[in-house]
């Protein structure tokens, strides 16, 4: 297939995902929630800028004193918002968009897709990227809007906060590979959501690995714990790294990020492989 035809097909698959997200009100649901949050931040903060310094600032009902380090305060608030968006937004994103992948496997729809001169992995990746872009558009819309609101009102332009959008999207991209694999294997959005949520919920438990290890007597059970910790996506650790990034704190280890990326690559490959092998 020529590069041009490849691009035409890819764009069609992405456009179709957006169309379905619009039709199912998934996109507008995200957009509405993001806009509501943006309005919330516009009106929650009252600020007076006098000679470049913040005279009085109220965030979440807390008043900052004029002599307080505004930069630090904004970074901390950014950190809190980023962590909230990362956690709550992720649950919402997985829940809302999990159906977008399994729908293409519906009998009567998949045969038609497969009859086109497009490789199977291309169809699935097109859908996956479309799904990422649906969520990504709203995540960046929200994060950039909050960044602008804080920047304009406080004069503190914390670019690390924008990084939180990339971090959130990175983790969503990894979790979406799980949705994709489960979707291919069992064609069920509900099961895909359950498994993905389970991975997210087990993550803070596994993150306490060193504490739990002390409670376990058998070596094999400690090995299992370690194996699970290193093999599964580190959603909780990712959140901690995200917060440190935003507030400008030190990052102890990037291992949770690259091992999670590795998990995503393996699961995505497994999903694409299973799809290529399946009979419809």
């Amino acid at each position, binding site marked *: 297939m020529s590069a041009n*035809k490849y691009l035409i097909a890819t764009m*069609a698959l992405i456009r179709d995902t957006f169309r379905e997200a619009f039709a199912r009100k998934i996109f507008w649901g995200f957009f509405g929630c993001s806009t509501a949050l943006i309005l919330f931040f516009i009106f929650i903060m009252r600020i007076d800028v006098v000679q470049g310094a913040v005279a009085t600032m109220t965030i979440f009902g807390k008043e900052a004193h004029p002599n307080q380090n505004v930069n630090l305060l904004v970074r901390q608030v950014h950190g809190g918002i980023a962590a909230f968006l990362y956690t709550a937004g992720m649950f919402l994103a997985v829940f809302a968009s999990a159906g977008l992948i399994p729908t293409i496997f519906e009998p*009567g729809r998949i045969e038609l897709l497969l*009859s086109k*001169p497009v490789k199977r992995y291309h169809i699935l990746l097109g859908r996956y990227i479309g799904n990422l872009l649906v969520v990504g558009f709203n995540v960046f819309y929200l994060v950039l809007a909050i960044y602008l609101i804080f920047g304009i009102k406080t004069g503190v332009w914390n670019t690390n906060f924008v990084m939180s959008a990339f971090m959130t999207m990175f983790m969503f991209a990894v979790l979406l590979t799980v949705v994709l694999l489960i979707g291919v294997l069992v064609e069920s959005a509900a099961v895909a959501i359950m498994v993905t949520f389970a991975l997210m919920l087990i993550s803070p438990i596994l993150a306490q690995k060193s504490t739990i290890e002390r409670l376990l007597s058998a070596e094999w059970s400690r090995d299992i714990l370690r194996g699970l910790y290193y093999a599964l996506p580190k959603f909780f650790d990712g959140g901690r790294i995200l917060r440190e990034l935003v507030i400008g704190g030190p990052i102890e280890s990037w291992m949770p990020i690259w091992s999670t990326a590795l998990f995503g690559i393996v699961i995505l490959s497994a999903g694409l492989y299973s799809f290529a092998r399946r009979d419809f």
Partner: protein
Amino acid sequence: MNYAIETEGLTKIFRKRWSGKEFRAVDGISLRVDRGTTFGLLGPNGAGKTTFVKMLLSASHPSAGRARIFGKNSRDPEARRPIGYLTENHRFPTYMTAQGMLDFYGALSGMEAGLRKKRIPELLERVGLADWMTVRLGKYSKGMLQRVGLAQALMHSPDLLVLDEPSDGVDPVGRRQIRDILQALEEQGVTIFLNSHLLVEVELFCRDVAIIQRGKVALEGSVRDLTAGSGYKVEAENVPEMLQAELRTRARATSQENGVLRLMFGSREDANMALDLLRAQHCEIEAMTRTNSTLEEVFMRTVDPPPLTAAAVPASAMKETANVG
């Protein structure tokens, strides 16, 4: 590249996950479909037709054998570029409009945006849905969905059309319209592979057919050959009951209407024997004609062998048929 479709020993075996039991849905089918022809694939439910078509389109992977589309291995996505496909029980996304749907599938076939934009109104006009272009598919009737499905299959001007029950749910007028479209395509040299339960439709439209049963080709040939000269019909009046009883045991089928006894025989010898018996009893012989089978009769004989002695058959079922191949 003389054949539009060529399969060699195409086999699909399904295995039960736990017991390991095998089921051969398609069992070594070797089939050749000439370029530019109209080919009908027939078979009872569960015969393996859909699995066969799915393997042609690579929606299902063969357990053995191979399939070629215009000489290319069917597993190569490029082999599917000249194919237009309308699936049975299609489920087009209801959030799409006809325009959006044709645009999407056209793009997947690699069509440029300008060409898609030009082709969509033409095609929708052709299938009688020009006024419905911007209406969501969720509001379409079954027949309309079938027609927009056909438009989708024609979107990229394919050289091979694979149609699974194309007139399913379509009213007689729409059915005629679809047939006219297909006939026009046939004249343009497009190969049409039809999978349909409507035997009359296949008989009217297809040049060649294959009947498959239990995953194997049970019968294959041109419609003209398969339906030609299948038997003899003898009509007589005033046939004594004793003779009637004897003839019924020898005939393939019998019926009686307004005092005329109609007897169907499979061979000339049997028909002549019947004439001798009727003459011996001084019965009035009305006619003896050679009959053609309908494709339905050929189909029924192939997939379900007739009983040795046929019960009385309605006269309408015995009407002489024209060879429409």
